[in-house]
C-alpha cells in the first residue's frame, strides 16, 4: 500500500497576521513556516501504520503545491519520516487550483490512501481534500479521527455532526484528518534530519488550471472594546450584565 500526504506550508500558529501592498498580500517578514498541524498529525499516523510490517506499507510520500520556498517545510516532513517528496512548482492560487494540480499528478502516479488535513491554517478553506477526491472520482471521508488497516482494508472513524461512525472504504480513498488521528505529532530525530538531505524531493511542472476565486484584499479584525472588569465578590453584577446589557442569558 502507498500513502500520500498532502502538505500545506503555513505560518507558525503564533504568527500575528500583518499585510503589505495595500493589504493585498500577507507580510512574510520574520514568519516561521511549519507543516500545517493536521498534515503533521496525518504524517505521524502514516509513519505509525508503516512501522507495523503487517500493514505492508511500501512508501510514504508528501506532496505540496508551492514555490521553492516551501522546500524547507517539505524537508521537515522527510526528516520526520516520509520516504520522498513531490513539489508541484506553482503558486497555489486557490484550493481548486491546488486540488486540480495534485489530481493531475495522481492520474499517472497512483496512491491507495491519501491524507489531507481538515483545514489549512492560512486560508481555512477545508476544501482541497474533497475537491481532490471529486477530480479523481474516488471516495472521500471527512472529519477522520482514526485510521487503521485490518486485512488490507482501511477502517476509518469519522465525526458526524452529533456522533461518530466507522467507515470502510474502497481504495483509493481520501481521508481528511482532524483531531485524534494521531496523539502527538512526531518530532524529527537527528538521524532523520541527516537522512532527509538525501531523500528524493522531486519537482514537477504544473498543468494549466484557472483558479475560481481571487483575493481582493485582507482586513484585520476591528479592535475590541476593553474588557469590563467585575469585582470577584460581586458575581451577581456579572450575571446582571449578561442578562441586561449583553442579553445573552
Amino acid at each position, binding site marked *: 500500500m502507498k500513502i500520500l500526504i498532502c502538505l500545506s506550508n503555513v*505560518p507558525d*500558529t*503564533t504568527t500575528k497576521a500583518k499585510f503589505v501592498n495595500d493589504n493585498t498580500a500577507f507580510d512574510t517578514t520574520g514568519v516561521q513556516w511549519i507543516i500545517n498541524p*493536521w498534515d503533521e498529525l496525518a504524517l505521524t499516523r502514516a509513519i505509525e501504520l508503516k512501522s507495523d510490517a503487517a500493514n505492508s506499507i511500501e512508501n510514504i510520500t508528501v506532496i505540496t503545491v508551492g514555490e521553492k520556498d516551501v522546500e524547507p517545510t517539505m524537508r521537515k516532513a522527510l526528516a520526520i519520516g516520509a520516504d520522498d517528496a513531490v513539489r508541484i512548482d506553482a503558486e497555489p492560487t486557490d*484550493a481548486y487550483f491546488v*486540488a486540480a494540480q495534485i489530481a493531475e499528478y495522481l492520474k499517472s502516479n497512483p496512491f491507495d490512501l491519501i491524507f489531507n488535513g*481538515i483545514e489549512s*491554517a492560512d486560508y*481555512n478553506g*477545508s*476544501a*482541497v481534500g*474533497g*475537491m481532490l*477526491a471529486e477530480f479523481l*472520482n*474516488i*471516495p*472521500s*471521508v*471527512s*472529519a477522520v*479521527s482514526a485510521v487503521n488497516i485490518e486485512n488490507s482494508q482501511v477502517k476509518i472513524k469519522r*465525526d*458526524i*455532526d*452529533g*456522533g461518530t*461512525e466507522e*467507515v470502510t*472504504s474502497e481504495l483509493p*480513498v481520501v481521508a*481528511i484528518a482532524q483531531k*485524534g488521528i494521531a496523539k502527538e505529532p512526531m518530532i524529527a530525530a537527528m538521524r532523520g534530519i541527516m537522512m532527509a538531505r538525501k531523500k528524493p524531493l522531486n519537482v514537477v511542472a504544473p498543468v494549466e488550471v484557472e483558479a*475560481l*476565486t*481571487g*483575493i*481582493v*484584499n*485582507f*482586513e*484585520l*479584525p476591528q479592535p475590541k*472594546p476593553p*474588557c*469590563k472588569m*467585575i469585582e*470577584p*465578590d460581586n*458575581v*451577581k453584577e*456579572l*450575571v446582571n*450584565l*449578561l*442578562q441586561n446589557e*449583553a442579553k*445573552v*442569558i
Partner: protein
Amino acid sequence: MSVLVFTENWDGKFKKISFELVSYASKIAEMLNVQTVALSIGDVQEDELKKLGNYAADKIISVNNDKLKNLDNQAYASVIAQVAEKEGAKVVIIAHNNTGKALAPRLSVKLKAGLGAGVSKLPSSVEPFTIFKKVYSGKAYSNLVIKSDIKILTLSQNSFEFEENVKSPSIESFEPALSDDLFKTTVSNVQKQTGKILLTDAEIVVSGGRGMRSGDNWSPIEELAELLGAATACSRPVSDEGWRPHEEHTGQTGKIIAPNLYIAAGISGAIQHLAGISSSKCIVAINTDKDAPIFEAADYGIIGDTAKVLPDFIQAVKELK
C-alpha cells in the same frame, strides 16, 4: 434560476442551522432576484418540511431514498448537483460544519463552482460576487471574489441573524439517479451523542482550562452549564491530560465555535485557543492572573479563583430563575 440550500435534519427534524441557511439563502436570492429552493435529504414529514417556508423558502425539494441513509460524500454531492442543475442554481448554500465541509468541495468540482468557505455575512456585492471570510484562523479576514458562473458558500454556524419571513412554499419530491458506482463506502457502528447539547450547536458554552487544576474539579462547570442550558468545553491541555473528553477541545486544532456566550474559566487565552472561540458574541473570562491574554479577547472579566467565582456564579444564576 435559483439559490439552492442544502438543509440538514436530525432524525427527521431540521437542525437550527437549516433555518439559518434558508434565511441566509433567501437574502442572496433577493439580491439576485431569483427563487430560494431548499433541498432536504432523508425521511422528513411534510409538516416539518413546511417549516422551511417560515424562513422564506419558495420551494422545497425532498429526496427520500434508502440508499442515502448514511452520509456517502460522493453520492450526496451527486444528488445536490442533480438538483442544482434541475433548478438552475446560481448559488448553493451549505453549512460550514462536518457535513458541509465534506460535501461543498466535491460539489465545487462537480459544478465547477468557486467555493467561499466559512462565510458569516452576506456578499458585499453580487457583481462581481464578493464575499468576506475568515482567514489565518480568525486573525484576519479577506474579501474574496468568486469568478465562476455558479458559486458555493458555506455558512458558519450561529453567525447570521436569521429572521422569520413566512411563505407558503411548494413541496416536491425528487428521485435522483443513484448508480451503484457512487457508493464506495460502507458505514457501521454509528454512535449518536444523545441527550446532550452539541458543542457546535450550543448558544452558551462553559469552558475550563488548566486553571481548574484537575478533572475532579469539573462539577461547578457542569452545574453552571446545566443551569444555563449550555454545552461544556475545554482547552487542549485539559483534553490531552484526559480530564475531559476530546470532543470538548476547542481551538485551532479542536472545535471552532461561535456561541452567543463563551465562559472561559482558568483558560489563559493562548492564540491557538482564541482561534476556536474568538467569533463568540460575548466572552467572559475568570482568571487569577490579571495579565492573562484572555482578558484582551473578553467582554467581561473577573480576576479571581474559579474555586470561589464559579460557585458564586451558580448561586447568582439560580437566584435569577
